[in-house]
């Protein structure tokens, strides 16, 4: 590489190439398109229903055109009866959205089959498994979502952190095993969230990338947290316990954002079984997350405020997630956020692994293998307790 700093010499050729590319693309767009025949198949009309809102006597669908061609809504029928509706008067372009408000006397808890008849006679169908009045985003809703998020996020994580004094007495070998357990816990969460993200993304129609969104979210989160790690360490390669705990808390927090999202959207469509099972199930499940946060802190004595702060960082995003999930039902956003959680957890695992090694540098001795296995099983089994 030369040391010349003449910007024209450096960037001139690049600018010329970019200009040439722009010129060729423009020419292609103007002349090239005409040399090819039109699509021989039928128009690709697709509408994804991103949100369904049920208010007395009205069903409101927020639809997005996820296909290649504009879609014009002709008429709409619900359970084989045409209905009056407003919205969607003009063609919906690719990625465009429109609200269709259907005048229909729906009954609570009944299933509905909505068919959108497009201008070409195609039918785009949408199922409501069981009609439930959509919660209004009022004070009561915010309070409920905050309470839910606190129950399933903050309280269990903080409870898990109470194990810290116990951890201090188990010695360095014990801590290694515990960290292995944490790796197991987190690995299970990452796998579980990845599968959920893919499943959600499959349903979304794919206009914004489908499953690739999960991968994108994961990679972005991983890279962002890696950068954050470097900044926190200030170039110091030695990982202090508190810094590691903070990274774990952030990673788990991002994961709990996705968890809250699922709870909120399940509540919005009336599928969430609120009550003891949910709260206790999540409490047991997420207590293990608190354990993961404090596991690097056995050699230190952080203040109570700092510990609480870590608990809030890890648990509070569940509240935010519940609020978003309850108000915005967007599968693509959900799968992207799940992906972010996955990337965050993966980054935390990378952070944890050095601390699991023994003095000889071995990663997998019988104790750590046993610990990781115990972590995986613990997450699997406590996961069975939660229904959301």
């Amino acid at each position: 590489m030369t040391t010349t700093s003449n910007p024209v010499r450096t960037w001139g050729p690049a600018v010329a190439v970019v200009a040439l590319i722009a010129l060729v693309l423009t020419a292609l767009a103007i002349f090239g398109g005409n040399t090819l025949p039109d699509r021989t198949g039928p128009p690709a009309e697709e509408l994804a229903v991103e949100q369904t809102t049920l208010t007395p006597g009205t069903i409101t669908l927020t639809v997005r055109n996820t296909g290649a061609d504009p879609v014009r809504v002709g008429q709409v029928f619900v359970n084989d009866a045409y209905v009056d509706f407003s919205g969607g008067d003009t063609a919906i372009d690719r990625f465009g959205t429109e609200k269709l408000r259907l005048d229909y006397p729906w009954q609570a808890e009944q299933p509905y089959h909505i068919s959108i008849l497009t201008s070409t006679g195609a039918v785009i169908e949408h199922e409501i498994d069981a009609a439930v009045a959509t919660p209004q985003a009022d004070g009561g809703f915010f309070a409920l979502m905050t309470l839910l998020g606190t129950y399933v996020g903050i309280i269990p994580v903080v409870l898990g952190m109470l194990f810290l004094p116990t951890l201090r007495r188990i010695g360095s070998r014990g801590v290694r095993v515990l960290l292995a357990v944490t790796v197991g816990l987190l690995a299970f969460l990452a796998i579980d969230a990845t599968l959920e993200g893919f499943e959600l993304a499959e349903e979304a129609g794919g206009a914004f990338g489908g499953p690739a969104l999960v991968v994108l979210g994961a990679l972005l989160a991983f890279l962002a947290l890696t950068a954050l790690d470097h900044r926190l360490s200030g170039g110091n390669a030695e990982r202090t316990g508190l810094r590691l705990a903070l990274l774990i808390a952030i990673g788990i927090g991002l994961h709990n954002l996705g968890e809250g999202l699922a709870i909120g959207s399940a509540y919005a469509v009336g599928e969430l079984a609120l009550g003891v099972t949910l709260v206790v199930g999540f409490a047991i499940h997420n207590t293990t997350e608190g354990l993961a946060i404090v596991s690097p802190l056995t050699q230190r004595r952080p203040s109570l405020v700092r510990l609480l702060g870590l608990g809030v960082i890890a648990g509070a995003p569940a509240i935010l997630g519940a609020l978003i999930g309850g108000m915005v039902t967007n599968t693509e956003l959900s799968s992207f956020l799940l992906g972010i959680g996955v990337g965050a957890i993966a980054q935390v695992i990378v952070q944890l692994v050095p601390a699991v090694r023994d003095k000889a540098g071995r990663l997998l001795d019988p104790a750590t293998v046993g610990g990781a296995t115990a972590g995986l099983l613990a997450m699997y089994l406590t996961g069975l307790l939660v229904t959301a």
Partner: protein
Amino acid sequence: MTVPESPEHDHSPPSRRKFLLGGALAGTAGAAALGIGGAMTASADNGGQPGHSGSQSGHAHAHGGGAKGPTFRMDSRVDHDANGFHPTDILRDFDYGTTSRTEDGRVLREWDVYATDEEIEVAPGVTFPAWTFNGRIPGPTLRCTEGDRLRVRFHNGSKHPHTMHFHGMHPAEMDGIPGLGAGTIEPGGSTVYEFDAEPFGVHLYHCHVGPLAEHMARGLYGTFIVDPKQGRPEADEQVMVMHGFNTTFDGEGNQLYAVNGIPFHYMHEPVQVKLGELVRIYLVNTLEYDPINSFHVHGNFFDYYPTGTRLEPSEFTDTIIQGQGQRGICEMRFKYPGKYMFHAHKTEFAELGWMGFFEVTE
């Protein structure tokens, strides 16, 4: 944790196949050049039938909405002018053809019927690539008297092969099916179907080229009425063809159901009838993909003459069932003024378009 399977995100790709209809314009233009259109069959012999002005233009009644019943998007209407036909006109449009005498003194009745491909607005904002007889759905109501000699010149202006197959009694080579007589009439081709009008009754004709269900479902059907020699009592006569549109072409049921072409039409423009006057409805079921259809009238009963082949009614009822290709005559008088609904009592069809009103006035 398991993300709940949310119904919000179900999404099915459209199942519709778009069919090209390059021939539509050519066919229509051909018919127009020959001076033939929906109104080409001005009758030379109205057979002493009571005259009716046809179109009850004007009052576009809003109906339905929410619990008040099914409707298309409120106040949306199809463009009848662009379609080239109007269900209110079709109701009382009987085409007697042009008549002359045969050498042996019988009435010779002649028609020209054109198959064309048309893009029809079957519901407001929804177009359907139809195949039609004389540019309309249903095709023209061909009407004659028992014993007439009938000559139907069929011209295929469609991009697809078609025939005209009449229900009635005729020689095999006049049956209008592939492989017999003139067989399949290719695009641009024509033929003449000639036979005697028998038996009297209400019948139908339709294309008989395969795939048969599709050739019918695209719109190639119409009513064929053979009057008895002695005639029937004077009445306000109407024809109602019950049919549907399978707009997705999946061959599994229909997305729209109608009488005389356009769903819900007689909800906006009720069929105008007079108090106490005899109303005679020639009712034909040409619905495809659904095995049965039905007809029900509110606030009244009617005499039913299955296939119209007897002069005595078989039943006094307010609801009848017709299978595919079945037809009959309903005769009724309205006792009270006001609006009376009529619809398929297969209520799913009713809510998908097959419903209308009679409006009874003094």
